[in-house]
């Protein structure tokens, strides 16, 4: 059995060749045995659903009647549904606001944290705390804070004479309110990754810049940020991939309202499938979403590879 683990030799004597072949077969079988859990789980719950999602997008199915192939009808129905355009625009708004509000924040936080010597551990624990709060609990908490009357935010803003603001109840501010919560929930992880990257910048670079007369700002701008560029690119893509799939925030905060202002693509897929029973249309919209995400993931993997081989 131990022979199974030998690497195949490049030149082997004819006598042992048949024994090796036998050993090779046993290695394949043993490999199959150990891969069985992965093959079962990925086969049934990953590969098949991915393939099947593609198939269903060309079918009409309601779980009762026999399946009918309908060609591109599902895609036509989805693309002519005014809600889809609205959901795409809303999702882009969530992604865009998330970038404007949520993307620079962890970089600034990490930059400050990188200068801290004492209590550095306290900063790291506190910045990461929101990340460990389960999303549903975090969103329900924020919903309570956003309460127009007795909510924490309007009460605090009222102290300085601002508001009251409608937050989740107005189509103008609802999406912004979702983004603020999502930024709060996601900032800590990114900040710690930036911090790790910042503390890895070679000290000689800063010393050289300083001896050339560069002040703190120019060292940040011309030394630190260029060194961080790969990490910034990766986290930008990860944030795009994550925020395009936004679901829990609009589902719990607003159920897509008010007046459809927070209806996102994934929420619409959920409605098509689990409220209307339109599995074909849900699958068609999923395929469109999957194409966007796969392109972003491919760019992400390319970046990771070029980054790790550097």
């Amino acid at each position, binding site marked *: 059995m131990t022979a199974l683990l030998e690497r195949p030799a490049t030149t082997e004597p004819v006598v042992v060749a048949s024994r090796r072949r036998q050993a090779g077969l046993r290695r394949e079988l043993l490999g199959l045995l150990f891969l069985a859990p992965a093959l079962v789980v990925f086969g049934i719950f990953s590969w098949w659903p991915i393939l099947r999602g593609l198939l269903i997008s060309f079918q009409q199915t309601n779980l009762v009647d026999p399946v009918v192939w309908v060609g591109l009808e599902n895609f036509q129905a989805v693309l002519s549904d005014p809600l889809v355009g609205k959901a795409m625009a809303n999702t882009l708004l969530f992604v865009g606001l998330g970038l404007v509000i949520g993307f620079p924040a962890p970089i600034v936080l990490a930059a400050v*944290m990188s200068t801290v010597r004492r209590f550095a551990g306290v900063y790291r624990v506190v910045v990461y705390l929101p990340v460990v709060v389960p999303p549903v609990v975090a969103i329900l908490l924020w919903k309570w804070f956003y309460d127009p009357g007795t909510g924490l935010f309007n009460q605090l803003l009222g102290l300085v004479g601002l508001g009251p603001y409608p937050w989740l109840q107005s189509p103008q501010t609802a999406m912004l309110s979702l983004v603020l919560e999502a930024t709060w929930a996601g900032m800590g*992880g990114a900040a710690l990754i930036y911090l790790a990257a910042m503390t890895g910048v070679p000290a000689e670079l800063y010393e050289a810049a300083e001896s050339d007369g560069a002040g703190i700002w120019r060292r940040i701008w011309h030394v630190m940020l260029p060194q961080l560029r790969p990490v910034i690119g990766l986290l930008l893509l990860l944030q795009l991939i994550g925020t395009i799939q936004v679901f829990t925030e609009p589902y719990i905060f607003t159920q897509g309202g008010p007046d459809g202002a927070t209806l996102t693509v994934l929420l619409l897929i959920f409605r098509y499938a689990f409220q209307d029973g339109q599995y074909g249309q849900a699958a068609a919209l999923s395929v469109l979403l999957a194409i966007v995400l796969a392109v972003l993931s491919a760019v992400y993997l390319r970046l990771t590879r070029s980054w790790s081989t550097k």
Partner: protein
Amino acid sequence: MTTFTSSNDLRRPGTAFALRAVQVVTLLALVAIGIGPLYWTVKGAVSPPTEMVTNPLRLWPAEPELGNFARAFTDLHVGRYLANTVTVVIGSWAVQLLVAMTAGFAFAVIRPRFGRYVYGAILATMFVPYTVSLVSLFLTVLEVNLLDTYWAIWLPAGANAFNVLLATRFFEALPQELYDAAKVDGASTWQLLTKIVLPMSRPVVAVISLLAIMHSWKEFIWPLVVISDPNLQPISVALANLVDSAPQDELIAAMAMALAPPVLVFLVLQRYVVAGLGFTGVKG
């Protein structure tokens, strides 16, 4: 540890003061946004309902009461939902670990010839987040009759390509001489796994466990879809359903109990969480 400020900068009193001021302000802001909401939850949970309406900004209630916690247990069945969550987490963790370790061992140590095709097919699933196959995954689970059972959460959780990648990379990085030496001593594959590889795998087991537990405790959309029986729902799904019917003070007590376990676990293991984040690069 390097940073963009140097000891020369800090010798200038103005710069040193400004830097210190920025650090303190940042810490205060972090405490406000990091600890503030958690504190406010606890405060809300022990406040009498009338006080939350009449004096919502009070920092601590005049007469704190613990009755909300008890009522959250008896009226809202928070205990049962927490136990359900623990069941979901343990099962998902076990399946993820089993799949990742066996697959990693097969790819990195046994190295069957067909292995690289399977490895490629597993890594390819990283391009397709499970949210986009939500509908077809639901239909599959429906057909294999797993709806309203925890297997519907446990088994799909195992199909995690990132775990397989971590385990394979880890086993590949172990010194090859170890395997050779074990072979000379006449060890079987099973002994190689249990006596040599697994005892050395504690770092990768720890990272996969941490990611698996944190992720499955936070999971919402999939349990929402496959567990409709209120007696089986984990706390996230239950809270989302209770929000419109439960009294607010009991609900806040229930939320405090739902966030306490992950926060406490994080505070105990924070070193490893922060280190694990560095190890995995980007997965939170």
